[in-house]
């Protein structure tokens, strides 16, 4: 127990190993995988999913779920395009409008689900449909080309090779993790996710806390929309279809519990990396569509199994406590 090993970030180790294993595997399968180019392309591709995974971590922490992130990403992108092209505003104004729209939709999600005690699954499923419809309306169901006005955000900085959006996303991951583990708000999130009634009985208002989590998720989806638009230089109303499942998969691979109360933003980010490496690797080895599907499925499950087993071996006690004392069986 007293060995210097304990200073290692053990909680990130399991996923890190899965990630390394994947990279190693693709390195063997493809001559060109283990190159700097591969990694910068992966890096520049993930910012949207990464920020959305941050927001999703917050929502899952309070035992909620947000299915609307994909639609909100599209809506935010659509609005950004609209403000840029039809209103001829600067990118700054457009970005604010897009991100704010995400936050407002998140606020609506949070308000309805927290205030009226409606399951967030349903509220955000509704928002998924509404947000998508709004994105179609905004764009007239057309993809709008935006060109260089937005692409600066996603263009690799000379010298660094990484885009501003990636830098911002990583910064947000760090901030998110700090908020979660060091601030009063973060502690309240975990507390609400663990035992909301107890928090309420401690004289703390839980509704604002829950709403805040959804607002953050909406905000992040809006920001994801900005990153997405910048990356693809166009506003596409069909963007982000099915993204909610990828985001949740990333977050859950990162060890966040769908039952609330347990989660880590850094681990969610590792989950995002695993998914991105997998997608790029499979495309690079030229796997057929069925193969891609099957391998993706297997990797998702195996990553979580490995993570769970690492926990069991490394910390049997904690596991025993979790499984047998806390009425929160590891299987949901």
């Amino acid at each position, binding site marked *: 127990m007293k060995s210097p090993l304990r200073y290692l970030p053990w909680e990130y180790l399991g996923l890190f190993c899965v990630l390394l294993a994947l990279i190693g595997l693709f390195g063997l399968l493809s001559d*060109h995988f283990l190159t700097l180019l591969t990694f910068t392309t*992966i890096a520049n591709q993930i910012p949207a999913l990464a920020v959305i995974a941050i927001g999703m971590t917050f929502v899952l922490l309070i035992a909620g779920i947000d299915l609307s992130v994909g639609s909100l990403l599209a809506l935010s992108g659509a609005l950004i395009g609209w403000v840029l092209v039809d209103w001829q505003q600067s990118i700054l104004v457009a970005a604010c409008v897009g991100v704010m729209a995400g936050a407002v939709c998140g606020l609506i999600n949070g308000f309805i689900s927290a205030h009226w005690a409606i399951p967030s699954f349903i509220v955000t499923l509704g928002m998924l449909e509404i947000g998508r419809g709004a994105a179609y309306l905004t764009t007239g169901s057309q993809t709008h080309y935006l060109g260089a006005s937005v692409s600066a955000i*996603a263009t690799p900085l000379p010298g660094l090779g990484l885009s501003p959006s990636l830098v911002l996303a990583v910064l947000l991951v760090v901030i998110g993790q700090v908020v979660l583990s060091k601030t009063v708000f973060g502690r309240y999130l975990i507390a609400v996710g663990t035992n909301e009634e107890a928090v309420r009985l401690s004289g703390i208002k839980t509704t604002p806390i829950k709403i805040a989590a959804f607002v953050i998720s909406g905000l992040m989806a809006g920001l994801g929309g900005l990153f997405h638009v910048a990356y693809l230089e*166009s506003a596409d109303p069909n963007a*982000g279809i099915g993204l909610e499942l990828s985001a949740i998969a990333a977050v859950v691979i990162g060890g966040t519990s769908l039952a609330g109360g347990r989660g880590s933003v850094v681990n969610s980010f590792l989950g995002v990396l695993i998914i991105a490496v997998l997608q790029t690797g499979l495309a690079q080895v030229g796997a057929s569509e069925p193969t891609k599907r099957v391998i993706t499925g297997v990797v998702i499950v195996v990553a979580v199994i490995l993570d769970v087993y690492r926990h069991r071996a490394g910390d049997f006690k904690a596991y025993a406590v979790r499984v047998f004392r806390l009425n929160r069986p590891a299987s949901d």
Partner: protein
Amino acid sequence: DSATESNGQSEVQRPKVALIMKSLANEFFVAMADGARQHHAEHSSQYDLIVNGIKDESDLTQQVTLVEQMMAIGVDVIVIAPADSKALVPVLKRAVNAGIVVVNIDNQLDQSVLQQANLSVPFVGPDNRAGAKKVGDYLAKQLQPGSEVAIIAGIATAFNGQQRQAGFEDSMQQTGMKVVSVQNGDWQQAKASTITSALVNEYPNLAAVLCANDSMALGAAAVLKQAGKSEQIKLVGFDNIAAAKELLANDRLVATAEQYGGQLAVFGIDFALEILAGGQPKDKKTPVDLITKAATP
């Protein structure tokens, strides 16, 4: 319904035409629907129109259901762009048996299945394969023979996607190019961008990427630009959506194809009205034109 009431002058019973499309979330079909509505506005005394589409192109059940619903409303004509060339045949046969005039547009129903079902449905639409071949041939003129090229196809099961892929392959083969990779981008911009970035890494000598629609070409173009490969790797698309024009103008897209989606439904409706009037028109291939920076017909 509303159209009937608002006109209020239905001395003669106007035929009811149902236009059933694939994804109304797709620009191509939106243009198609708009074209039909405009045509209807100009000829509102001749027929009533109801336009429907499905959520995304893979939702066959929804489209079959739409056909049944239109039968339930009692339409006289169904003009359909089938989401699947086989699975729609049985329900269309029921429609035909119910005395409804069915016209197939855009995506041709599978001939062997039609034969099995003992049905013949007139077709008005483009030849995707020929169109894709045109685009491919134009691209090939700008490449060295033997160059490495990659194809990003649509959804694997989509007939028009398969046709476009086949057209690309035909032309690449005939012009002696080397197809190093064929992957499905599922018509999606984001997916195509992921695939493109992987292709760029994996094939340093890649000379061209052929995308089965313009959305995917947009995704690919963005990646190529970021990778600084816009010059080296040529790009072609299909559909000629509005956003593609900018790319053509900036030389980031070599060519795309125009299928006149706006007209397609109109052709179909006219065709059906002709049948109703007692005519027996022949299957009609609508034009597919090559679009380049220089040539915009």
